[in-house]
């Protein structure tokens, strides 16, 4: 049959059903009339004629039904009927429907949220980039370590001269670009009284060509834009920036804007979608050689100054392994040619991706874990729904028996039950998507708060997540419905029709298996949740050695205001003396690094007579003003604090922590000793020792640390730490800054508690998710145990009646039901603990001070589940024990 004809028929049959039916009715009645007339003509009396005609035609209704069955779309028609029926059935048991829909909504919604985030940030090709799968990232790897690099940690930056050599010597890439994002590439876009901070990147001139990014307006960079001798101060801006900051005006090309106080000419606007190729997004690009002027420009030409990452496009036919081999060779050559600058300096190649190579394995594990958690809850929810369907199948046994006995096809009844579960799953998916929508809105507000990265924010619901949810819901619906449907229709008709029957033992077994799985999975989840919870509590209980509460932080980057070193120093000093006059403050300080935010300023130190890598003390440092220790409440143990006389030009001083003091001068006093810092071997005198604290993350081990006075080392990035007497003084500090320089944007203002919260952000997310998910899982499992116990008690009502009549004690009956439920819970718990013992090892890296086989968590999981299972089975058991034997036997 031609498909089109068929489609037309289906549409007609479904949409114009009334007309089609009337037509059929008319046709058959016309046929009947014809027959009657024939008989009349033969001389049969009217009554007889009618009767004979009807006999001849047969039952009009039955003929109609036969016609209906062959019509196109008969299946769809039947399906619509089934759906209608299923909806009526579901509406009649709202409690079941609500539980099932809700549990599936949580499972489906959770998986959809994780899918959406992973899809947006990990799976999808970056918008506006041509053929993204042919792009690779190029970075420095440490050849001192054993083994090669294949996309793990330790992917780092290289210098501009090295980049020029890579570009010159390589033959595997159609193009190799370099770029720098991060700290110094945040631009202050000054338009006088409103300066904004704009994420940008320094890029090589071929950047847009290599990525294949179309330029929508004006031009991209030309080779002559990238010149050390005479750097052109030009910039290409993103389409979004063009729209938001320049109102999409066509004459934007050629206009001069001030970036970090320096004039730049806009030469082009990129195609609308582009904002960089990774999740770290940019809004404007500037040639590498336009790197801040003065000293910094000279540093661009230094081979030892590593600050660039590479991105290359593989030539057609070249594999990533070939590229890796060639870049490794070039790296070895350059090591040999420049042994000083390129010590242990290898070159690695990794597939380009949304997540920077260094973070990739962590992010993948994190996302995998989230998927596992939401996936588990989905599986539990499935078993829950299947279990309830099974129970309802039992309750409907008389009805189903009747239908089967009347000749309903078994597959039709199974289809009916599967449709029911698919409807439940579809409703669950719909409810889940509403939840996804809400969750994504909340996440959309949280994501910009993430430190360090300027992540693309647009995790709204799209068709991919809808398709994902719908497909998943269909799979879930069919698989949840199939087993119960098979079980429910496998009915021995004869006894069912005569009595209430007790042949449900097979079904009890299936359902028990379901409950065992549910219990096992929720025990697994519970153990994970307890592990994370304990880990988080341990982390929270760690004393960072300073007071996190009551401290506020305001971030500035003087470069964004276009300050050079001399003016910056002056400004910083003036700002601090202004802030110190605020009566609302107990203490205030500048610091280069805010503790516990994951940031670290490295600083290698040597004893004055020692040299070489082996003897170096790998320390970290912070650059602070004298008020720092008082603001954070860090006690000085020996020596003195920095003072106003520790200024530029005065003897260089430092304060070390206990670990560094112990390490460098075991058993001696550190005050008065000397250290040399960095490659320049600048000597400093130790003037004080301060208590050990947590610096980078709360979970770290004590490590060597030293502080240098800000007056002796100028830094453009400074965090103002204040301890207000009242609840907050951020407003006052902002006012001072605005008054002193309206063009200087405040990078960030928050409480220290908020800022440090990010140190444990992934752990917190996982712990919360695990807690929510495991609570739901355990409750669902308890519901399952309750259902099985109730069913079990119900099945044995008559038996219990007999027992009681024969003198059994109520306690014995109670035990009968409890024992069965207890067995299920015990088997499930044992399986769950075994699974946990196998799987929690994978969590090791995310736990703080808790072993993966932590006995408390394991015991806790078992106890929680056991208690709930007992409570859940107690109610039906008590009901069974209170049966009146006379009633039970009278049935």
């Amino acid at each position, binding site marked *: 049959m*031609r498909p089109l004809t068929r489609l037309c028929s289906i549409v007609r049959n479904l949409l114009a059903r009334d007309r089609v039916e009337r037509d059929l009715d*008319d*046709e058959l009645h016309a*046929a009947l009339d*014809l027959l009657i007339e024939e008989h009349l003509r033969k001389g049969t009396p009217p009554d007889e004629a009618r009767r004979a005609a009807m006999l001849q035609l047969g039952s009009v209704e039955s003929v109609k039904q036969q016609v209906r069955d062959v019509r*196109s779309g008969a299946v769809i028609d039947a399906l619509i009927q089934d759906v209608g029926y299923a909806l009526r059935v579901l509406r009649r048991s709202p409690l079941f429907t609500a539980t099932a829909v809700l549990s599936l909504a949580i499972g489906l919604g959770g998986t959809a949220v994780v899918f959406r985030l992973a899809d947006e940030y990990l799976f999808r090709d970056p918008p506006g980039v041509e053929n993204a799968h042919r792009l690779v990232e190029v970075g420095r790897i440490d050849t001192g370590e054993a083994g090669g690099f294949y996309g793990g940690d330790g992917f780092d930056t290289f210098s501009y001269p090295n980049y020029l050599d890579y570009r010159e010597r390589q033959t595997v890439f159609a193009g190799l670009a370099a770029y720098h994002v991060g700290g110094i590439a945040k631009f202050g876009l000054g338009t006088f009284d409103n300066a904004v901070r704009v994420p940008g990147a320094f890029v090589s001139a071929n950047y847009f060509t290599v990525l294949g990014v179309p330029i929508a307006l004006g031009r991209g960079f030309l080779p002559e834009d990238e010149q050390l001798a005479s750097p052109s101060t030009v910039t290409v801006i993103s389409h979004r920036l063009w729209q938001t900051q320049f109102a999409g005006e066509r004459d934007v090309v050629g206009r001069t804007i001030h970036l970090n106080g320096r004039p730049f000419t806009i030469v082009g606007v990129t195609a609308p979608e582009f904002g960089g190729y990774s999740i770290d997004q940019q809004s404007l690009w500037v040639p590498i050689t336009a790197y801040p002027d003065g000293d910094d420009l000279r540093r661009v030409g230094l081979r030892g100054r590593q600050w660039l990452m590479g991105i290359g496009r593989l030539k057609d036919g070249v594999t990533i392994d070939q590229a890796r081999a060639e870049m490794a060779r070039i790296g070895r050559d350059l090591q040999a040619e420049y042994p000083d600058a390129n010590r242990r300096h290898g070159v690695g190649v990794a597939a380009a991706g949304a997540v920077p190579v260094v973070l990739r394995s962590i992010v993948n594990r994190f996302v995998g874990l989230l998927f596992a958690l939401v996936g588990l809850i989905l599986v539990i929810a499935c078993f829950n729904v299947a279990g309830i369907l099974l129970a309802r199948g039992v309750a409907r046994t008389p009805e189903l028996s009747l239908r089967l006995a009347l000749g309903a096809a078994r597959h039709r009844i199974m289809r009916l039950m599967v449709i029911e579960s698919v409807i439940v799953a579809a409703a669950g998916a719909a409810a889940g998507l509403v939840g996804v929508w809400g969750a994504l809105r909340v996440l959309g507000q949280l994501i910009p708060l993430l430190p360090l990265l300027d992540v693309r924010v647009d995790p709204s619901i799209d068709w991919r997540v809808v398709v994902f949810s719908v497909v998943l819901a269909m799979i879930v619906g069919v698989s949840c419905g199939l087993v119960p449907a098979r079980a429910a229709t496998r009915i021995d008709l004869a006894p069912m029709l005569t009595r209430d029957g007790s042949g449900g033992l097979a079904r009890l077994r299936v359902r028990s298996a379901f409950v065992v799985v549910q219990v096992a999975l929720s025990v697994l989840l519970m153990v994970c949740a307890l592990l994370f919870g304990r880990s988080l509590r341990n982390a929270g209980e760690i004393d960072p050695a300073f007071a996190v509460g009551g401290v506020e932080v305001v971030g500035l980057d003087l470069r964004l205001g276009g300050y050079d070193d001399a003016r910056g120093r002056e400004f910083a000093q003036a700002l601090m003396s202004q802030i110190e006059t605020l009566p609302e403050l107990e203490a205030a300080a500048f610091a280069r690094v805010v503790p516990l935010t994951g940031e670290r300023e490295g600083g290698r130190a040597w004893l004055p007579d020692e040299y070489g890598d082996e003897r170096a003390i790998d320390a970290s440092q912070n650059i602070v003003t004298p008020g720092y220790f008082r603001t954070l409440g860090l006690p000085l143990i020996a020596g003195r604090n920095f003072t106003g006389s520790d200024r530029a030009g005065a003897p260089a001083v430092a304060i070390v922590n206990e670990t560094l003091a112990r390490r460098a001068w075991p058993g001696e006093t550190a005050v008065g000793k000397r250290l040399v810092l960095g490659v320049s071997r600048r000597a400093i005198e130790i003037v004080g020792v301060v208590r050990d604290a947590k610096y980078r993350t709360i979970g770290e081990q004590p490590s060597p640390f030293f502080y240098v006075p800000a007056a002796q080392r100028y830094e453009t990035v400074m965090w103002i730490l204040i301890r207000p007497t009242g609840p907050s003084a951020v407003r006052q500090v902002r006012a001072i800054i605005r008054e002193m320089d309206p063009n200087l944007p405040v990078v960030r203002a928050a409480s220290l508690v908020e800022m440090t919260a990010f140190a444990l952000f992934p752990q917190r997310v996982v712990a919360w998710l695990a807690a929510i998910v495991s609570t739901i899982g355990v409750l669902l499992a308890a519901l399952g145990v309750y259902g099985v116990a109730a069913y079990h008690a119900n099945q044995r009502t008559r038996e219990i009646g007999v027992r009681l009549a024969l003198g059994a004690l109520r306690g014995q009956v109670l035990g009968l039901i409890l024992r069965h439920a207890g067995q299920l819970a015990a088997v499930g718990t044992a399986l769950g603990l075994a699974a946990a013992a196998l799987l929690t090892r994978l969590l090791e890296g995310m736990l703080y001070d808790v072993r993966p086989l932590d006995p408390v968590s394991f015991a806790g999981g078992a106890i929680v589940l056991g208690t709930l299972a007992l409570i859940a089975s107690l109610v039906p058991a008590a009901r069974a024990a209170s049966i009146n034997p006379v009633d039970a036997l009278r049935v």
Partner: protein
Amino acid sequence: MSQPRASLLQGTLDLLILKALSAGELHGLGVSRRIEQITGGTFVVQPGSLFPALHRLEESGWLKSIWEASENNRRAKYYTLTKAGKRQLGEATEQWNRVALAMTKALEA
């Protein structure tokens, strides 16, 4: 649906209906009469088989129907072959002849 012979009989019935209509338009009962007549009374098509078959063939695009006045001025639904139906009749006849020939040969062997 439940009889295993349905497909064989169905094919036969379809061919007979197409053949019956090849001489001109007929209403439902007319088709059944005509089949009885051309098969010499061997096949008596019951309404329960006839009407579903007519509707199926119409949906396949081989027949079309119109309401017309019958010989004694009653309204009845008349079926005629479409172009596709004529083509189908030719093909099915050919097919049938091949099968019949083969069957005859096989049974005589």
